């Protein structure tokens, strides 16, 4: 009979995820300036890590699987870093409407 019970770790993870959801919504309404974004993204990363490591069982997998799981995010980071380097350092971004000649 007991075999169909969910393991405790799973239930606590679910509860933790819902708690983080409440926290992130609450945090969004607090006037923290630039920190709002950092807080929201940090909590999102925490939630994602719970889903990935516990629900997707990555914590029980070998190094190769962890490498594959990380590769997409790592390469996305490369794309964001190098591309945003242009957007952040360009004086005329956004370009705005072309001049009427």
């Amino acid at each position, binding site marked *: 009979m007991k075999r169909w019970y969910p393991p405790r770790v799973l239930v606590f993870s679910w509860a933790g995820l819902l708690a983080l959801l409440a926290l992130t919504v609450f945090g969004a309404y607090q006037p923290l300036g630039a920190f709002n974004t950092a807080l929201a993204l940090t909590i999102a990363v925490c939630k994602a890590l719970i889903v990935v490591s516990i629900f997707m069982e990555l914590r029980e997998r070998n190094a*190769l699987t962890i490498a594959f799981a990380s*590769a*997409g995010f790592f*390469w996305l980071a*490369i*794309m964001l870093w*190098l*591309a945003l*380097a*242009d*957007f952040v*350092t*360009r*004086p*005329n*971004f*956004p*370009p*705005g*409407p*072309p001049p009427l000649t």
Partner: protein
Amino acid sequence: MSSDRNYLTADNSLRSWLFTTDHKRVAILYFIGITLFFFIGGAAATMIRLELVSPQGHFFTSDVYNRLFTMHGVIMVWFFLIPSIPATLGNFVVPLMIGARDLAFPRLNLTSWYLFMIGGLITLYAIFAGGLDTGWTFYTPFSTMYSNSHVVLAVTGIFIAGFSSILTGLNFIVTIHRLRAPGLTWYRLPLFLWSLYATAAILVLATPVLAMTLLLVALDRFAGIGIFDPARGGDPLLFQHLFWFYSHPAVYIMILPGMGVVSELVSCFSRKAVFGYKFVAWSAIAIAVVGFFVWGHHMFVSGQSAYAGLTFSFMSFVVAVPSAIKVFNWTATMHKGWVTFDAPMLYALGFIGLFTIGGLTGLFLACLAFDVYATDTYFVVAHFHYIMVGGMVTAYFGGLHYWWPKITGRMYPEYWARAAAIVIFFGFNMTFFPQFILGILGMPRRYHVYPPEFQIWHVMSSTGASILAVGYLLPLLYLGWSLFFGRRAPANPWHATGLEWQTPSPPPEYNFETMPVVKRAPYQYTLKGRERAQNA
């Protein structure tokens, strides 16, 4: 030999071919597809070179000319070069080389072919229904707002074909990691597999970004979203960043497999292990990784920030280093080897020379100051044709000849093959070297009307193209002939090392009766082997 049951004779019904999961048959299906697209793209090239013979442009209007070079680029990049070696030679050889019975996901492999053909047919339809005039690069806002051509249709075809690429890459990565025969450690793998692994990594990581980019172009055009339109707050450079994030690594998809083939050919026909195996192996990985850091070198004059330009220029110099390491190591492999000039080796030698020229001219273009002058001229056109045609297509032909006996069970006629290789080399240089000069003189790319003082170089280039065309038609003829009349091939006609040569030619359906066990490093060529090859 042919009375034996092999993968070709096992079941000859059309149904058995169209529903096959045998990687060897999927390779043949791909081969038919890409050959078809090669000749269609080549027909476009023929029309381009015909048009460029005269400075005024006699045959086509500018609008039609735009559609011709677009068609040439789209078909050659996405429907010939990207799949070429991986989907044909790779699909055939990878399981054999690692001692497996098939790839990790055989049904995904067949799905990949169907996606490729469906995408290709949709794109062909777009082209024959009136064409595409945006260039293969689809720059916005022209492609999203002003072009009067079949952008959405073409983009749909390429989007679908992109999933074909992704699935092939996925299959290769998992196969090479997990289906290697016992004893086949990473450092015992033939270098072709290291190159295909690096290629597969790029296929998997870069192509999805192309998918999103094309989707955004289609949505922008279809729904008028204006995500790339400056008048509505968008930025055309966002498109360029997204597009080139895929398309630069894509050019490494279009060279790494060729480098892998060349490693096999150079060692076999020098009867010597590849010099600096680990360097050549890791240089493939380095090219794949660093290749993701350089895409902005296509955007030096686009208006991106100077800081971005500097970063991308520097990284473009860095990425040349692993390629150079390969060239040095192949050369060192031949040094004091016992070199024979069979047709595959002629192609390998052609690759080394032509790729070096293409690669060096890439370094010129990586210099910001030079690129401002040379960008969008024929210098760039010559540069990338030296690499993609002089390099990749040459390597493809080399690999095709090398593995032809294994794939078909027949030998091709050697003297015709050598003649064709020489004609191709000569025709290629005559076509594309004048284009470097044209570029320096100021001839822009994608123009069909030009000042009369450029005509001599265009005539030279077009003459070369006609010779090159003959060179490319010859293998179609003699390889086709060999299917019916060629000498039956033994299991290992080149006395080469590698597990694929331990099976009969052609191989049986399930490749290996018992799983092979590998105990030695690759490329164990010996003096005895040389003598045996000499006396063969």
